[in-house]
């Protein structure tokens, strides 16, 4: 569906990355591939180093580090937060919502809404849509959108499909009302028949975690995982992205009356370099306009990959310049969603370590 929003703006983006950096080479002896093949995999997919949280670090810890930083630097006033949205697939608890835990940690005002959303690779877009909708309310003037995932413990170290690319990270995005009359265009589609293309089979109500679900099994390609681990049908996800994302972007741009060339940057979710390059080619967009360097530097942290790409590739440029950006996220759900938005005069756009 097409969505439109008026009088809204993003005023700051902060990404928080765990300091701990893991190299591809340090883990490749755990994969069922010869060293030569592993290095070929590294080259083709653009794997190198990824950021992995130390044991015990939760999504909320990364968020709290980010908010602390913004409060200290006086980039955010905690009394002004009218809504706290946390998009995560790795909450601290099944209950309560982790956003409430964060609210309590900081003693934020009670006159606000806390909301957790279970979304993944499209989580930045879905979170922005929710923020824009909340800002329709008279009493909601500033929304803090948190995207955070610590999924590395959910990935098998012996899974070369997912382990080399997984990253942990969080981001804090400030979304506010604006006097600007420019329209933000959005597009969103979902297909729940593909719910098992990316899934953690055990640990929920359908299949509670047990000693049995923790047993490692080898798949046809020689990867070892248990039912407690994240599993991705790589070929299905690849086909889904190549099939659905280009038409979505064409529809978004045509609804906005905008050409491909008008867009300064395509900041897309970062599954791997291979897939992003294929997408850029298929869309007819120069690869320089669609950065694909997040997985090789930091790993793919699900919904945090787009803010990381914006922070890493544009940095303080966005505090001075005005750029038309096309955002797109696609993955778990299946979900695919995009936004065309002008980013300008941000109060901050940076990356810090945890």
């Amino acid at each position, binding site marked *: 569906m097409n969505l439109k929003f008026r009088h809204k703006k993003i005023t700051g983006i902060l990404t928080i990355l765990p300091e701990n950096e893991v190299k591809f080479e340090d883990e490749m002896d755990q994969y069922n591939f010869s060293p030569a093949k592993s290095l070929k995999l590294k080259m083709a997919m653009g794997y190198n180093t990824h950021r992995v949280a130390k044991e015990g670090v939760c999504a909320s810890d990364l968020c709290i580090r980010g908010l602390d930083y913004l409060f200290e630097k006086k980039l955010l006033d905690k009394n002004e937060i009218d809504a706290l949205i946390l998009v995560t697939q790795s909450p601290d608890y099944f209950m309560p919502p982790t956003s409430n835990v964060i609210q309590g940690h900081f003693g934020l005002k009670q006159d606000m809404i806390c909301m957790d959303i279970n979304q993944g690779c499209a989580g930045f877009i879905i979170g922005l849509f929710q923020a824009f909708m909340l800002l329709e309310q008279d009493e909601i003037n500033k929304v803090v959108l948190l995207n955070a995932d610590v999924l590395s413990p959910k990935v098998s170290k012996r899974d070369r499909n997912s382990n080399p690319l997984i990253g942990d990270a969080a981001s804090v995005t400030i979304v506010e009302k604006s006097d600007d009359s420019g329209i933000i265009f959005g597009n969103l589609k979902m297909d729940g028949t593909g719910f098992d293309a990316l899934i953690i089979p055990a640990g929920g109500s359908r299949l509670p975690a047990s000693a049995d679900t923790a047993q490692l099994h080898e798949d046809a*390609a020689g990867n070892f995982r248990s039912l407690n681990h994240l599993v991705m049908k*790589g*070929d299905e996800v*690849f*086909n889904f992205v190549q*099939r659905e994302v280009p038409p979505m972007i064409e529809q978004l741009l045509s609804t906005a009356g905008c050409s491909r060339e008008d867009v300064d940057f395509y900041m897309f979710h970062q599954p791997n370099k291979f897939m992003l390059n*294929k997408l850029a080619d298929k869309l007819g967009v120069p690869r320089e306009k669609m950065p694909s360097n997040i997985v090789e530097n930091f790993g793919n942290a699900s919904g945090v990959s787009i803010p990381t790409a914006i922070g890493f590739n544009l940095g303080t440029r966005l505090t001075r310049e005005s750029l038309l950006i096309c955002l797109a996220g696609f993955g778990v759900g299946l979900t695919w969603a995009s936004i065309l938005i002008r980013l300008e005069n941000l109060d901050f756009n940076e990356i810090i370590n945890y």
Partner: protein
Amino acid sequence: MEQLKEKLSVIFELDKIDTTLKFVDLEEWDSLSSLSILAMLDSDYNMAMSNADLLTYSTIQDFCDYVIKNRK
């Protein structure tokens, strides 16, 4: 047809691919070469297949025939 065989040879790093074999019979067959084929089909032949589809062909020649006949 020759072009498609050439592309497969490049993916498997072979001088000339033996199309009487199945994909799984090739020493270089793995999830990465499989994904490379899916990507090549998508970009050059506008076709989508799954890993499992690739394994249903009894020879690589059968696969090539199917692709050439059904390309869009």
